[in-house]
């Protein structure tokens, strides 16, 4: 039974003491009463609603928005603060030591921290169903909306918990300050959400497709959210079990990349087969995102490299062998692997869209040269971090210059070729031009490869030092 989980019980004790519970319930009921009263006034005296059905439908959607605030925003704040609170409260070691599986810990925190939210959400769900039925909304649409709400809540909460394990904040910040900051940024979004609530029903008639399967767009979005929630939960379990290791294992990184490409390919499949260049471009663009993000979540440090090349218990290892083994273990190799997966999928979609493959292969090559420089910058940061912690700022400045300076220079000097040196400019230039068969890219790859020389040499130097470091450590032992 899920409620036998000791962590849920622990949160039940601390969060659901009668006084706290009553305060939450009274505030929530007051909001509900206020909302109903305002709508009644609007209906009775302002004549905003033409019929009672429209009034009920409107109230139903207003409760849906309230539910969004409760489950997506309040829930995310709760889940996101769980581990941070344990760390700042110095009780995290006890949590780690509990003889509970990582799964039980994850469920315990996600459910336990959100017990009050779940109680309030149940009240809202009942009201949504009641007003939805009074507004003669179809059961299927209500079920779809609730399914969407819950699946996105699962995604948001699991990502929030994962980030609280991964990015642990040492100093406890004021909760009020955090809330103000969140509302400052999310406020306009919430207001917009309220305004667009009435248009929410437009999704009712839209169908999406996954390969050849046609599905209501809400169901499709929910399934995608659940898919990524699963990855997020896998991440949580990994971080509970192997805290000192990066979020993605190598296998996990490749699998996530393949899965991501598969999901995206499935969603765009029917349009790709119709030969749309713009859809092919969209696929290229969206599928590029993980090859930029995954290496950041899979960083192995220089210390990891030194530990991995454990010469101490080995008899004879040559320095060349060490260099090669370091490369296989490195973040660079992962970057290449991810790019190969992306390139294979990009070639696949281009062939499917029946576009000129040769020109697109050239585009992939240009992109590779740009990506290579970025991944070398990342590796430069990794291998020089033990030398100076400031290297991060240095690398970030170079990356920013690489992204922005060519855009400015190309505009000032009116040289189009410069634009394509920046990855942003390159992507803009690759946008399918309706007047031309294929976008022509300049030979910017030469400049990119020239840029790679210095970081490449510096990285090689640090890789070579691993052998000597291990030898020195072996002698000391």
């Amino acid at each position, binding site marked *: 039974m899920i409620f*036998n989980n*000791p*962590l849920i*019980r*622990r949160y039940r*004790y*601390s969060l659901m003491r009668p006084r706290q519970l009553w305060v939450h319930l009274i505030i929530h009921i007051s909001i509900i009463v206020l909302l109903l009263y305002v709508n009644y006034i609007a209906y009775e005296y302002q004549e905003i609603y033409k019929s009672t059905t429209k009034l009920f439908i409107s109230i139903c959607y207003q409760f849906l928005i309230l539910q969004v605030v409760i489950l997506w925003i309040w829930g995310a704040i709760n889940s996101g603060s769980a581990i941070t609170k344990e760390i700042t*409260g*110095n*009780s995290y*070691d*006890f949590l*780690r*030591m*509990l*003889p*509970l*599986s990582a799964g039980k810990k994850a469920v315990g925190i996600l459910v336990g921290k959100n017990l009050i939210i779940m109680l309030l959400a149940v009240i809202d769900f009942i009201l949504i169903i009641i007003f939805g039925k009074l507004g003669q909304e179809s059961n299927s649409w209500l079920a779809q909306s609730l399914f969407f709400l819950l699946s996105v809540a699962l995604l948001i909460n699991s990502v929030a918990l994962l980030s609280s394990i991964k990015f642990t904040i040492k100093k406890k910040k004021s909760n009020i300050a955090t809330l103000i900051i969140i509302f400052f940024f999310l406020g306009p979004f919430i207001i917009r959400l309220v305004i667009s609530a009435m248009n929410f029903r437009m999704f009712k008639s839209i169908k999406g497709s996954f390969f050849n399967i046609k599905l209501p767009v809400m169901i499709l979005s929910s399934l995608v959210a659940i898919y990524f929630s699963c990855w997020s939960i896998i991440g949580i379990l990994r971080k509970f079990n*192997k805290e*000192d290791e990066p979020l993605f294992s190598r296998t996990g990184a490749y699998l996530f990349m393949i899965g991501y490409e598969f999901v995206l390919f499935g969603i765009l499949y029917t349009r790709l087969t119709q030969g749309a260049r713009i859809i092919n471009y969209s696929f290229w663009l969206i599928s590029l995102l993980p090859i930029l993000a995954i290496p950041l979540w899979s960083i192995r*440090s*220089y*210390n990891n490299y*030194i*530990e991995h090349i*454990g010469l*101490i*218990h080995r008899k004879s290892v040559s320095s060349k062998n060490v260099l090669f083994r370091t490369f296989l273990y490195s973040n660079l190799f992962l970057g290449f692997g991810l790019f190969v997966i992306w390139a294979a999928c990009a070639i696949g979609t281009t062939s499917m869209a029946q576009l000129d493959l040769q020109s697109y292969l050239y585009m992939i090559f240009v992109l590779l040269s740009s990506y290579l420089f970025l991944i070398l910058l990342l590796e430069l940061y990794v291998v020089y971090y*033990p030398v100076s912690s400031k290297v991060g700022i240095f690398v970030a400045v170079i990356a920013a210059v690489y992204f922005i300076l060519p855009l400015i220079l190309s505009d000032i000097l009116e040289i189009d070729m410069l634009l394509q040196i920046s990855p942003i400019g390159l992507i803009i230039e690759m946008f399918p031009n309706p007047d031309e068969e294929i976008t022509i890219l300049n030979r910017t790859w030469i400049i990119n490869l020239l840029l790679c020389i210095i970081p490449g040499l510096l990285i090689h130097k640090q890789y070579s030092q691993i052998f000597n*470091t291990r030898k020195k*450590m072996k002698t*000391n*032992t």
Partner: protein
Amino acid sequence: MDILEINNIRKEYGTVVAVNDVSFSMSPGQVLGLIGPNGAGKTTLLRILATVLRPTSGSVKILGYDLKKQYLKIRKNIGYLPDFFNLYNDLTLRECLEFFARAYKVETKSIPARIDEVLNYIELSHKRNDLVRHLSRGMVQRMGVGALLVHNPDLFLLDEPASGLDPKARIQLREILKKLAGEGKTVIISSHILTELSGFCTHIALMNDGKIVMQGAVEEIQQKVFETRKICISVLDNCEKATELIKDSPNADIISVKNKDIMIEINATEQELADLNSLLITNGIKVYNFSEAKTDLEDLFMKISSSEEQEFNRVK
């Protein structure tokens, strides 16, 4: 069967070797004092044993379970008190202990009785319905031990349990630890305040620079390190004459003379000690105390550390 078996464990953080090829084993009922200066690797070693850190290499078996593969089973059977910890401030003592009891799968029916037992043990029964946040630091530390006791583990790992406590709280905690030792529990307790460990450690291991430089039963190590005996001689009068006589005896060195108390270090058998006592009396000195001063862990630590330092300088 050994309760703990450590074979060549090593923990590296890049080029820093925090624990360097440490090996030892422990039988049930032993109380091991892990002593060493700050940064010696005590906390890292305890965190490895507590399954919180993974060793870079080497193997550890706790209660026959492999540390790398069966860490969940190990966690069920050990109790680890970290150096800086806090319990759940928003729970009462009873709720807190109930949480630990359920997490460690103590039989549901026996939980209330177990909680009472533990609260009595740590002498906090009167605070059972208070929130943890209302406890003093010393009480929280005792409560920390209580949280471990609730599932009655086979091995206790206590990392600097008395650090930051006032003398009264330290004495209270010491009494609890003595009780544990007296009950035959297997305990590893780390500290750099050596008086904390005196009196209830059966074994000690001295750590320095990630290595265990000396280990064994307390008496064994005392004998190894202190080949000479410390004797305290108290005389009623003629202190100067007594000092002269002692100086003339073979293998005796005077450490200090305070009022009428003479502290000496001597490499002698029991017969030779008796002869020295007779010599003083026959020379008209009224001896009212002739006893062997006990060397405590503090002396032992200083002695080992200084010999380590001398060895280091010699090699250098």
